[in-house]
């Protein structure tokens, strides 16, 4: 069995599969322990009810559905809420050390959209604790780790996925894995945008591998813009500022000093939200009778309010708003010490990178591209995609979060569904065994792999199109290469193409969207695709980032097109999607997910698929827990 990705979901899947007795290989784009899970700060959501005994899986389920504007797969939301507590306790048995309550149990903190304090955490470095625990547990379980390898194509035979082709960064050798089942755990697509909290790795690899293999993607229009990224200095723009700051009492203010989040509370959350500063503070201090402050509304809403303040001229000096935790000094003794203890890496990050002491002054923040709610459409129980033998878990899978993800639900997502994917992929692998891929498929994938280097070496002219035609026909490598009219050669290098795409997506398919801009974006993505299939890179095969970037372009462009097409299809505003031209909700669109698939002609097709219906019991829970 092959697991692609070694973040939390990939590691958890590999551990489960190896425990089931299946031989597992894990490939990761970076070194072990460096995946994006390490960046997660605030905590992992699980209804342990250690801090507030009113919490239960039912409330967590209802919160997740409400946060996702009911576009979630309710079965996934239920499994997630039911199983998260066991997954967290299991981590503790593997050596993770969470912060504690007074009676020695796992401590939980408040977070946006969660009704009760629910996030198990370790200061603000929960992700590091989790990935290190999984990594250190995993290395003793006979899993075969291949670090710094990237997969570029899946292999199919007899209507199922039977392996993958890629390369190792160190030597640039082509790698072929034969596997009875493949789990995608490749994370998100943040690198398709200009301002992002994501690292170079998040280029939509898993989504594109799945798409190219014929699997369906859903909810691609829902990209989460985290409300609080750093904005100054320019080089740190987009780096995440944890929601934990607001969970600990941090407040948002505009340039005029106004706590603008009180000005616009959505009806869906009115009954749960404090209407004065005093009550909000009491909530952050654990007063069970208090309602949460409006800063802890869902991320989509907070991000939009911040954009509104900036657009209407009430933003801060460098085009953000102010996030202030230092103010708690007026409410508690030893506040500076408390902040440094509860938010050590935020303290460090601002001190080192911006020269700001957050215990004394406010932070300047603004929205940053953070998370992909959409992804590979999977079966709730097994995490299998619409292509047999291909599974997906974590950020690259879709369904749990619907139109908007709650903070803390991603770490629990990757534990719950990483385990499930590992378990079911292992079962599938045992039941079906290995099958031989078509050698022609392997050849085509390898040709595509070296194409950018070969073009440079031979002064290859894309007008000939031989390589591109072979690649396009196999469904690997360059997007639509076979059918698209090819430009007379790439005028841009790989970094320039990537950069243009990022600027384009940020400006025209970002937080606020409208029809004409997105249509124009789609045309420009098409032009960049034509450039990308002709891109040539210098240097050799050994650890050559220019070549790697050139290979990532196909993935970035594919997911960028998918996001844009899905966003065009959803002519309404809901969750993370805000359409300036359709600011309201549309009842019919509230009943469907938008699905993206590669059509028989190789073109991207967009369809509406009905939501997975909630059971009578699930509906009852949702209605009861208002």
């Amino acid at each position, binding site marked *: 069995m092959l697991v692609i990705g070694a973040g939390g979901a990939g590691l958890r899947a590999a551990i489960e599969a190896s425990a089931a007795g299946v031989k597992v290989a894990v490939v990761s784009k*970076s*070194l*072990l*322990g*460096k*995946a*994006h899970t*390490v*960046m997660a700060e605030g905590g992992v959501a699980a209804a342990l009810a250690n801090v507030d005994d009113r919490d239960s899986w039912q409330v967590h389920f209802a919160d997740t559905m409400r946060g996702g504007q009911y576009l979630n797969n309710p079965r996934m939301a239920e499994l997630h809420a039911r199983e998260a507590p066991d997954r967290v*306790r299991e981590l*503790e*048995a*593997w*050596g993770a*050390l*969470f*912060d*504690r309550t007074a*009676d*020695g*149990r*796992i*401590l939980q903190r408040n977070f946006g959209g969660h009704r009760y304090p629910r996030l198990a955490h*370790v*200061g603000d*470095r929960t992700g*590091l604790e989790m990935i290190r625990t999984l990594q*250190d*547990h995993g*290395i*003793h379980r006979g899993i075969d780790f291949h*670090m710094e390898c990237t997969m570029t194509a899946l292999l199919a035979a007899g209507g199922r996925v039977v392996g993958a082709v890629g390369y190792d960064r*160190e030597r640039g050798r082509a790698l072929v894995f034969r596997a009875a089942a493949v789990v995608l755990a490749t994370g998100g697509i943040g690198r398709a945008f200009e301002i992002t909290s994501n*690292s*170079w*790795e998040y280029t939509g690899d898993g989504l594109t591998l799945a798409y190219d293999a014929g699997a369906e993607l859903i909810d691609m229009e829902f990209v989460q813009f985290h409300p609080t990224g750093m904005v100054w*200095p*320019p*080089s*740190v723009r987009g*780096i*995440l500022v944890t929601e934990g700051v607001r969970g600990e009492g941090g407040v948002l203010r505009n340039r005029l000093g106004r706590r603008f989040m009180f000005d616009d509370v959505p009806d869906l959350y009115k009954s749960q939200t404090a209407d004065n500063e005093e009550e909000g503070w009491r909530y952050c201090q654990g007063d069970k009778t208090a309602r949460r402050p409006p800063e802890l509304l869902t991320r989509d809403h907070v991000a939009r309010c911040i954009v509104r303040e900036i657009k209407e001229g009430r933003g801060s000096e460098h085009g953000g708003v102010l996030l202030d935790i230092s103010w708690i000094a007026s409410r508690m003794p030893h506040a500076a010490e408390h902040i440094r203890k509860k938010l050590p*890496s935020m303290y*460090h*990050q601002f001190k*080192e*990178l911006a020269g700001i002491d957050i215990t004394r002054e406010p932070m300047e923040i603004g929205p940053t591209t953070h998370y992909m709610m959409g992804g590979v459409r999977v079966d709730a129980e097994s995490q299998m995609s619409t292509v047999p033998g291909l599974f997906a878990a974590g950020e690259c899978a879709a369904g749990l979060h619907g139109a908007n993800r709650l903070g803390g639900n991603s770490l629990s997502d990757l534990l719950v569904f990483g385990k499930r994917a590992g378990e079911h992929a292992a079962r599938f692998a045992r039941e079906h065994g290995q099958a031989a891929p078509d050698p022609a498929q392997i050849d085509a994938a390898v040709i595509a792999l070296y194409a950018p280097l070969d073009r440079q070496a031979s002064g290859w002219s894309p007008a000939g199109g031989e390589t591109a035609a072979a690649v396009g026909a196999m469904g690997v490598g360059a997007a639509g290469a076979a059918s698209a009219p090819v430009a007379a050669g790439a005028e841009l290098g790989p*970094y*320039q193409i990537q950069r243009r795409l990022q600027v384009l997506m940020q400006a025209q398919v970002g937080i606020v969207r409208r029809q004409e801009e997105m249509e124009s974006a789609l045309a420009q993505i098409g032009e960049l695709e034509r450039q990308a299939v002709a891109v040539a*890179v*210098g*240097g*050799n095969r*050994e*650890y*050559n*980032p*220019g*070549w790697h*970037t050139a290979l990532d372009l196909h993935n970035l462009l594919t997911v960028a097109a998918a996001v844009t097409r899905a966003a065009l299809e959803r002519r309404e505003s809901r969750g993370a999607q805000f359409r300036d031209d359709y600011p309201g909700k549309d009842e019919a669109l509230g009943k469907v997910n938008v699905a993206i698939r590669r059509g028989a002609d190789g073109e991207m097709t967009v369809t509406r698929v009905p939501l997975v219906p909630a059971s009578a019991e699930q509906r009852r829970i949702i209605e009861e827990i208002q």
Partner: protein
Amino acid sequence: MARAVFRIWRGDAQGGELREYSTEVTTGMVVLDAVHQIQAESANDLAVRWNCKAGKCGSCSAEVNGNPRLMCMTRLSDLPLDRPVTIEPMRAFPPLRDLVTDVSWNYAAKQRIKPFKPRPPDAPDGTWRIAQDDVDRVQELRKCIECFLCQDVCHVLREHRLHERFAGPRLLVYTAALEMHPLDVENRTADLRGEQGIGYCNITKCCTKVCPEGITITDNAIIPLKERVVDQFYDPLAKLLRVFRRQEARDGGTP
């Protein structure tokens, strides 16, 4: 701001040289930004590892003007830009290409350390009760982001190349975190003295100085471990006790 000159080591296992690049410097830029800018502008194939760009993943370790640093946390405004900034790969590890080194030894050596082994659960539901104080005591050691800068600067590894006999500061911090874990019941003292070669450390504290997470490696991890080794192996009473135990085992052993 103006342009600055960077001398970046380009090469591979066979050898290499410092090559000069110039790029524009803007407010707040860190060394990694400059490397990326140079990569995009004039050296597309310049090899460099990075991920989070916020000092949390420990990927972009290098030697900046001779100092082991995370490139993402080194601001250009803190460096003298009137002369070239030198950027070289970590020297304690074999070079792969440009700024990328072969750090796989760290992973292999870690795998040989006895894993976490918890005591039986405290509560019937399979959970444990742990005091926050006990968590706090070990948290400092668990902050490690595995950037391996401490390994890079350690003279036992860097100059004496004793990778096969000495685990280095990072893995001693890891072992200390396991040994001081409130639930762990494994004993790694014999391995510390043997395979991990803790005796090679002569407490020069170079590792502590370069740790980007500010972990007091020598004082809070290595010295306490050295004390455990001493307690178990050099305490005269314990030594006597071990002799007796061996005697007993021989007497009571199967023929």
